[in-house]
């Protein structure tokens, strides 16, 4: 028996938003640290980017940012699929995936574990997007409306694909191709999320006989 989760859905969403925002702000702080480090090092050793020091800096920045990217993905994983999976099952699955990610990081390295987490996230977000577009399942969203929901799922799927492409496919020939897929998803998703009314008008204009979904 799984114990009942005594948090109201709205409160759960609110805390998830707080977690997401906090992680985003911390990523911003890591970037601020990077600016300071780069500028300071350039003052003390002007040619440092031609040396191993630059490689070490890139590695240290990646190591600093990866845990927060993982947290962000976990937050996304707990937020978006809540529309199709009960929250308790979702929390259990999230914990399991996080544990598996941690285990893979111990056995292999952070890059592989992050690639695993991203691959799982892509599958989940893609499933949510397809179900949303088909209008299936008991999907619940913070903001209602077909275009907002579709846009939101596209935007999140695009973001996860972008991070996956960047973390795991940088040396692949498909790198830029996948990048453009992510960019299109993010762009279309953002437009649909921000301007659902206008998107509805365009849809009605293109298919005059049909009702808005």
């Amino acid at each position, binding site marked *: 028996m799984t114990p009942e989760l005594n948090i109201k859905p709205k409160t759960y969403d609110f805390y998830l938003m707080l977690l997401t925002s906090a992680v985003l*702000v911390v990523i*911003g702080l890591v970037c*601020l640290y990077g600016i300071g480090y780069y500028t300071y090092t*350039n003052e003390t050793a002007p040619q440092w980017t031609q040396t191993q020091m630059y490689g070490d800096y890139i590695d240290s*920045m990646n190591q600093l940012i990866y845990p927060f990217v993982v947290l962000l993905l976990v937050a996304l994983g707990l937020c978006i699929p809540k529309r199709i999976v009960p929250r308790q099952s979702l929390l259990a699955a999230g914990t399991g995936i996080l544990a598996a990610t941690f285990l893979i990081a111990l056995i292999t390295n952070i890059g592989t574990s992050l690639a695993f987490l991203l691959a799982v996230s892509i599958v989940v977000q893609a499933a949510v997007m397809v179900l949303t577009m088909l209008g299936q399942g008991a999907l619940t969203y913070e*903001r209602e409306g077909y275009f907002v929901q579709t846009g939101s799922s596209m935007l999140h799927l695009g973001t996860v694909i972008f991070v996956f492409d960047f973390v795991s496919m940088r040396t692949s020939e498909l790198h830029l191709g996948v990048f453009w897929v992510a960019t299109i998803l993010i762009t279309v998703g953002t437009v649909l999320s*921000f301007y659902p009314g206008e998107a509805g008008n365009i849809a009605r204009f293109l298919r005059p006989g049909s009702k808005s979904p």
Partner: protein
Amino acid sequence: MSYQEYLAARDTVTTIGQPVITIILIVSLLLGAVSLYHMVMRDNRAYMLSAQLRKIVTLLLILGFIIIAWFHLRIYQTIELVYPPELANYMASTMGTSATSLRFAVPLWIETEKLYFWTLCLSIFLAVSNYRYDFIRTKITALFSSAMNIMLAAFGILTYYTSNPFREPLPGLHLEITGWYQAAGVGDPNVLYGALYQLYFRIIYFYNSEYMWTHPPMLFIAYASLVVTFVGCVFMLFRREKIFDRISYSHAKVGYLLLTVGMLIGYPWAVVAWEGKDWWWDPKINGSIMMWVLYSAYLHTRIYLKRRNMWRATAILGIICFLSLVFTYLLTYIAPGIHAITQ
């Protein structure tokens, strides 16, 4: 002869443009003073006058932009880098290109034109928002409109003193063009090859790059839109009026969309143009990511505005976002790295 025509065009730009931007400065100073007077004295006549002054600034900025566009067209028409015949043959046999010369198709937002373009976009956003929202309807929204006018005035003054595109039009590009004609005048093929080699990659990957026509303008339009969001957030701190959130959010949506797409478009450009160079995690990249994640956080917190303390938290976050935007813009000038203006 073509170089002489280019120099004549450059002189014309200064002769016509300098008075235009001087008038922009004067009207901006007036706009700032009148808007400030309205904010302090709540005088309606001052508000009406500031609305007229804002329109004049916008029209003058558009006029200045037309002058800039004309100059860029003249650069394209007059400057042609003709390849030496041996090089044209070599390129035809190895690269399959039949081109025998190169021209500069320079975007309208480089060097000192950047801040001018940002100011122009801001003036247009203000014109649109003044048209959309009836600011005179209430005292507080009229104050908001005056605060926006003060921002525009500040941008006009800053542009004149720090980034005047007419005082010495495109100094960096001018040096490169002059260098090319000097090399061509020497008559030594090796000197010409050297000059062409340097300029070729600059033209292909920078001046004429399709990314240069899309990446920077998207960011500058986004920046202009986010200035309105910033002023809205400042007002949100003091007054819990729904209209400030509405204005902030509607401009944040435009800004965030363009910021996201603009930044994404910069990535494949960097991969191609900076292949083998050390560009990842440089200060400008760090700053851009920082700005983007902060605006993402702002858009997330905004969903829960009705919750306790969230109104204030969102407003503060919106202000921090704008500070990070200004900081990111300045990084090009104050921090090292591949984006640095000194490199």
